[in-house]
């Protein structure tokens, strides 16, 4: 990954430092009147990344950009968009980077299937190991051994 240029770094640092450290992010005036819509807005916001912050959702961030995105989300909801439509609206403008839950596609297949892969392959390895290490099933006696056993039984009985 190429390191960000010093100027960009300074800019990012300035953004981080200058962002007002208000507690929490969603400001009272942003809240929608309809509690159902507001709840949906909060759920959607938790899925969207604040692009200028480090690992914060727009729901948690105080950065001005996050605020703009929150307002966009609410505006789309007010227009009657479904949750998916709102997300794809934001993705169209800001790219896939904005999604905190990556889409399931070829380039993220490995990411999404890691848990299944580890449990599956691990389970398979365990099963194979258990099979390999199971003691061999008792094989039948050979004809000579059968005869020897019969001989012993006969002797014991005749005594």
């Amino acid at each position, binding site marked *: *990954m190429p*390191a960000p240029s010093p100027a960009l770094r300074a800019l990012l640092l300035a953004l981080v*430092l200058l962002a*007002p*450290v*208000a*507690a*929490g*992010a*969603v*400001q*009272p*005036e942003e*809240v929608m009147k309809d509690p159902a819509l507001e709840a949906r807005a909060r759920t959607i916001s*938790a*899925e969207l*990344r604040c692009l200028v912050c*480090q*690992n*914060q*959702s727009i729901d*948690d961030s105080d950065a001005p950009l996050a605020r703009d995105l929150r307002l966009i989300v609410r505006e789309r909801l007010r227009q009657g968009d479904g949750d998916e439509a709102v997300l794809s609206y934001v993705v169209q403008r800001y*790219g*896939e*980077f*904005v*999604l*905190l*839950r*990556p889409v399931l596609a070829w*380039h*993220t297949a*490995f*990411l*999404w299937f*890691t*848990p299944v892969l*580890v*449990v599956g392959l*691990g*389970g398979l390895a*365990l099963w194979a190991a*258990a099979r390999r*290490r199971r*003691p061999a099933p008792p094989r039948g006696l050979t004809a000579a051994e059968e005869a020897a056993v019969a001989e012993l039984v006969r002797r014991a009985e005749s005594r």
Partner: protein
Amino acid sequence: MLIEVGHYALALALALSLTQMVMPVWASRAGDPVLRSITVPAALATFACIAFAFGALTYAHVTSDFSVQNVVENSHSMKPLIYKISGVWGNHEGSMLLWVLILALFGAVVALARNSVPPVLRANTLGVQAAITAVFLLFILVTSNPFARLNPAPMEGRDLNPLLQDPGLAIHPPLLYLGYVGFSITFAFAIAALIEGRIDAAWARAVRPWTLAAWCFLTVGIAMGSYWAYYELGWGGWWFWDPVENASLMPWLAGTALVHSTVVMEKRDALKVWTVLLAILTFSLSLLGTFLVRSGVLTSVHTFATDPTRGTFILGILVLFIGGSLALYAWRAPTLRQGGLFAPISREGALVMNNLFLSAACATVLVGTLYPLALESLTGEKISVGPPFFNLTFVPLAVPLLLVVPFGQTLAWKRGDLAAASQRLFVGFALAIAVTLLAVAVTWGGPVGAPLGIGLGAYLILGAAFEIVTRARAKTVGVSLRRAAGLPRSAWGTALAHAGVGVTVIGIAAQAWSVEALATLPRGGELRAGPYVAVLEGVLPRTGPNYTETVAHLTIREGGDPVGVIEPGKRFYASRNMSVSEAGLLTRGVSQVYASVGETGTDGRVGIRLYYKPLVLLIWLGAVVMALGGGLSLTDRRFRVGAPASRPAIRDAAGPVPPHSVPAE
């Protein structure tokens, strides 16, 4: 002068640890046990030197010696004493010094430990530990010298990052490092075993206390960090799936697996090859965490000032230790003899399940943390992997793991009986379902998943309690109690730790019912969250030692009666031109009312955010209970008195024998 001596002590420690590293190798070549015994005083001397260096740096911070660059950058003469001391490790150089201090501390404790570690194993372990110490000392001396002077010395320092000016900084990093670095001992033992080509139950017994101790520290350290983030960051979250949090969670998951697999190895001489690999991986993940925090590849709240040379150096260390140890493993592991057989339905089997799911969880966190980096460098595509992804993948792995826990405790070694175990757990199951239904009834109409989480937590706690009850049950209550008291402490420790997991699960599940309210309040305005109402009594300015503060004075009422006062504030640190919010907390039992202040408007209204967080303290209390369980296990008789095989059996069945009364051989 003291500063230069401190710097010199660090260089001396490097020389000593190099000696300590080389001696065991030389000794086995020369066949001279005297050379081998040098490792013990060398380990002690290394520790003494590093402790001196650390002391010198602390002295510079406490006396605000602004001729030292590290002090200038991270201290201020007006800073309270506790933050002058904790500020020593609130920066890259100082925290690295704490890292090697703890590394050397563990080395010294291994050198002094009186448990029955075979001398060759001990010497080799100390040699490996010295190699780690030497490399990190070199890193400090070459790239991150904390003793660099500044000439001319400024009159005043630039102060510590205000976010770090909190008692959390005094506790969280030392505990976390004790955990991270503690796994270095397990790693050193594993490498020593691979070099020797011998690994057995005695090895597991020697390693287990260190693993357990490191695990306990890491557990509390992570919990402490989580609580700190909860009250400091101001929006009431307790886990953010931040890359650096993930960096501490990965060794914890691997370490938890290791704590369990060493049990199998100690009791049944099985899973050896896997345990050694796990020991290597656990410490490798700790190193990876160090790399992620300090190299700047991932940025988060935790990252220290980034510097490409440091990143490259740590990457080199990473490649050396992880690559080297895995290569050694690939070469030597096939020579290790496989141990005891067991049926799939057995305690070993349950512990294997535990390891499988913990490994999968660990791999998921690892891949999730590094995937965006890898994808971007391979294809240039930028994606984000955040909390929604981790919640979605982690929970389905955690739930089956937790469901197995009570079974694992109940099943017999070698070959267990699932039907009998289920029968024994039946009452626990029934009670847990009753708890779930009760939770559903009480919170009718609320979130659906949460009662199930509460039920799962109850199931874990009941399962742990039933384990003790089953093992102690006798005809009369008196005999039962005596038998319970006579159970090995490790049995109690296991039960306690598993109950702790249940407590944490309940705390986490209950967060689905937390209530958030926000409003801009005029004086006298009210805001309700859950059963609590906050009344804004006023906003007042206040002055601290090195900051000015605006405090909102809130009275909390429940059903009309005032139950307490909280004062969330916003502090402004002029030295850094930076504001931080201070949450106000009111603890009611194990629940909390949480408030933070936002902007003050021109009309005098104040933005107030109020949360009701039911049972939230259980999240961290559960972690403390887990660590206490681990600690209790650590005091088990077999760790105090060494190998029981060579000693007379317990003489008094009613209670454990105190260590001094064990006759000397």
